[in-house]
C-alpha cells in the first residue's frame, strides 16, 4: 500500500519536472500560422466540448422564438459578432482568417449546442480561442437575446438579416463622400436608431427603451454610466464607450427633442393606478409618479408610454443590480420591494399612460 503511494508520488514529481523543462526549453511553437498537432487539436476540442457541457447552467431559457428577443439579439450580433463570425451575405474579414482556431460559421455550428451550452459560451467566452466573454456578467437577459437570434440565424437570408440588424438605418453610406469620410459600413454599426428608432419610428424591439422625448440630462447620464461601466449592459457599454462626451450630448438633445410616442397598450387598472400614484405605505413602496412624472428632476426617466416589456425587464434587472449610479441607488431598493405581479402591472400601467398626462 505504502509502496504504491510512494511510487505514484515519485512518478508525479518526475512528470511535473519534465513538463516544466519542456516549457522552459521553448521547443513548443505557439505560432498561429502553423495550426495544432492533430493530437493537441483533438485534446483541446474534446476538452472544450466537455467543459461547456459540464458548466452549462441548468436553467430554463426564455421563449427563444420571441421576435423582440431576436431583434435585440440581431442588433448586438451586427456590432459584436459579425466581424469574426460573418453573417448572411457578409464574408469573414481577412484579418480574422489568421486566427487559430478560425471562428466558426455560426449558421452551421450553433445546431450542435443546446440552448444552455450556447448561453454559457456566449456569456463566458472560451479560453485560447479568441472568443471573448460578454462585456458584463450581470445581464443574462441580454445573452439570451443573442441566443434567440443565433437560433434564428440559420434560416435568415441576407435581406431578412439586414432588416433585423439595421432596421431602417441604411446599411451602407449612400454617397462616395460618405464612404470616404466615415469608412464604409462601420458607421452604421453604432447608429442608435438601428435599435432605438428615430423620428416617429419606435424601436425595433419592445425590449429596447423608447428615447423619444426623454429628458436630455437623463440620456447623457445613462450614456455616461454605460461608458463608465456603472450601468451594466453588454450591448450598450461598448457603444456608449465609443461616443465622445459631445456626441453623447448631441444625441441626447436629438432624442429629447423628438415628440413622445403614443402609448403601447390600453390596459388601465384602477388599483395599479393608485399604487403608481400613491404608493403603498405598508409595503414601503413610494409613489412611482413622484419621481417619474414631468415635474420631477430631469435626471429621472419619464415612464409614460414606455414599452411595457422594457419596463418589466428593467425592473427585474434593477432587482438584482448592485447599485452604482446615483439613480440606481434610489431605484434598486424600491424595485426590490415590488412583487413580480406588481412589476408586470405597473409596467403595463405606464405603457398605457398617454405621455401628456404625466
Amino acid at each position: 500500500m505504502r509502496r504504491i503511494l510512494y511510487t505514484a508520488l515519485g512518478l508525479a514529481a518526475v512528470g511535473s519536472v519534465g513538463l516544466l523543462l519542456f516549457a522552459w526549453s521553448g521547443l513548443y511553437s505557439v505560432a498561429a500560422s502553423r495550426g495544432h498537432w492533430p493530437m493537441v487539436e483533438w485534446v483541446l476540442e474534446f476538452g472544450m466540448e466537455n467543459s461547456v457541457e459540464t458548466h452549462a447552467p441548468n436553467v430554463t431559457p426564455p421563449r427563444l422564438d420571441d421576435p423582440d428577443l431576436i431583434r435585440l439579439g440581431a442588433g448586438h450580433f451586427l456590432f459584436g459578432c459579425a466581424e469574426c463570425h460573418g453573417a448572411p451575405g457578409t464574408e469573414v474579414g481577412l484579418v480574422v482568417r489568421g486566427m487559430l482556431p478560425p471562428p466558426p460559421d455560426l449558421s452551421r455550428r450553433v445546431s450542435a449546442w443546446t440552448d444552455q451550452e450556447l448561453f454559457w459560451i456566449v456569456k463566458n467566452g472560451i479560453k485560447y480561442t479568441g472568443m471573448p466573454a460578454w462585456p458584463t456578467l450581470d445581464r443574462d437577459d441580454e445573452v439570451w437575446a443573442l441566443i434567440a437570434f443565433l437560433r434564428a440565424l440559420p434560416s435568415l437570408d441576407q435581406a431578412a438579416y439586414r432588416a433585423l440588424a439595421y432596421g431602417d438605418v441604411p446599411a451602407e453610406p449612400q454617397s462616395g463622400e460618405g464612404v470616404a469620410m466615415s469608412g464604409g459600413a462601420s458607421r452604421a454599426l453604432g447608429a442608435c436608431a438601428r435599435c432605438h428608432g428615430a423620428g416617429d419610428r419606435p424601436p425595433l424591439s419592445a425590449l429596447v427603451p423608447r428615447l423619444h422625448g426623454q429628458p436630455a440630462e437623463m440620456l447623457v447620464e445613462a450614456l455616461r454610466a454605460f461608458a463608465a461601466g456603472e450601468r451594466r449592459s453588454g450591448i450598450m457599454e461598448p457603444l456608449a464607450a465609443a461616443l465622445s462626451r459631445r456626441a453623447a450630448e448631441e444625441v441626447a438633445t436629438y432624442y429629447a427633442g423628438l415628440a413622445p410616442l403614443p402609448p403601447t397598450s390600453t390596459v388601465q387598472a384602477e388599483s395599479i393606478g393608485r399604487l403608481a400614484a400613491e404608493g403603498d405605505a405598508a409595503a414601503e413602496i413610494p409613489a412611482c409618479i413622484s419621481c417619474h412624472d414631468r415635474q420631477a428632476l430631469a435626471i429621472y426617466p419619464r415612464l409614460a408610454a414606455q414599452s411595457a416589456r422594457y419596463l418589466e425587464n428593467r425592473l427585474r434587472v434593477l432587482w438584482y443590480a448592485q447599485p452604482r449610479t446615483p439613480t440606481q441607488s434610489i431605484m434598486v431598493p424600491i424595485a426590490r420591494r415590488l412583487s413580480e405581479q406588481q412589476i408586470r402591472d405597473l409596467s403595463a400601467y405606464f405603457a398605457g399612460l398617454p405621455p401628456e398626462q404625466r
Partner: protein
Amino acid sequence: MTGLQSMFAPMGPEAALIADLAAVLFVGAAVVLTIVVAALWFAMLGSSAARRGLAAERAVIVGGIVFPIVALAALLAYGLWVMRASVASPAASNAMRIEVTGEQWWWRVAYRDGDGRRIESANEIRIPVGRDVVLTLRSADVIHSFWVPSLAGKVDMIPGRVNTLKIVAKQPGVYRGQCAEYCGGAHALMALEVVALPEAEFASWLAAEGAQATDAAGETERQGRELFLAAGCGACHAIRGTRADGRIGPDLTRVGARRQIAAATLPATRENLARFIVDGQHLKPGNGMPPFRVFSAEELSAVVAYLASLK
C-alpha cells in the same frame, strides 16, 4: 451613577417605585452573598464547632430552605405590590394620549389636538409635565420595545397587538430612550427623546405643531423646496401644506425644530442633514431611505436649508 438614560435617575412615579425596589434588592443581595461567602469561609477555615454546626443537615434545611422561602415570599409580596401600583391605577381623566409606532428603525409619533385631529411627528415625544400621558404602542413591522428608563420600564411593541404605557414626568427635561428589543440591522441606532415641557409651554407647542409647515422664507429655501418635491422626497415624507404627503418615512413638517435626526442618533445640524440625505446608508445601514446622490453641492445645501427652516 446617573446618565441621560439611567434607571437610577427616576423622573416618574413608576421609575421611582422601581428604583426603590432595586435598592432593596441590591441590599438584600449583598446581605445574602455575604452570608454565603461567610458560611463558605467558616466551612473551610472555621472552628470545629462552627464547622460541626454548618455540616448538620439542619443547617442545610434552615439556610437552604427556610430562609429562602421566608425571604422570597416577602420579596414576592413587595414586587407584586409595586406591580399593582403600576398596572392597576387608571390614568387620570385629563390624560394626554399619544400613539407611538415602532418602525425599522425609528418611531412614528402621533398626537391628537383638541379637535381630535391627528398630528404626526417622529422620534421626539413632547409631553406636559405632571400630567398622565398614555402611550399607545404599536409596531409596523417587527417587534420593538419602548423604553425611557427615567420615566418607566419598557413595554414591547408587537405586530398585531396594542400595548399601553402610562408615564408622568415630574419635572421638565429631556429624557433619552432607546429601542430595547432587537429589531434587526440598525437596532443600536433606534433612540428617541421625550421632552417634558411645562403645561402652558406644551399647549402652545402643540398648537404650533398642528399647523401647516412654515413657508419657504428665502430664495434658497424656495429652491430647496422645489428640489425636495422634484426629487421625489414627498413620496415617503410628508410636509403638511405642500404636495409632499408620503407616509413611509418620518413626517418632516417640523424637522427643523427637532433636536436630533436619524432616530435621535445625530444632532440636527445642517451637516448631518446633508450627510443623511447623501449617505444615510452609511450612517444607519439598512434604513429605508435610499441615498440621494442626484443633487449637486448647491442643490443639496438648498434642500438642507429648506428642511432646516421647517420649524
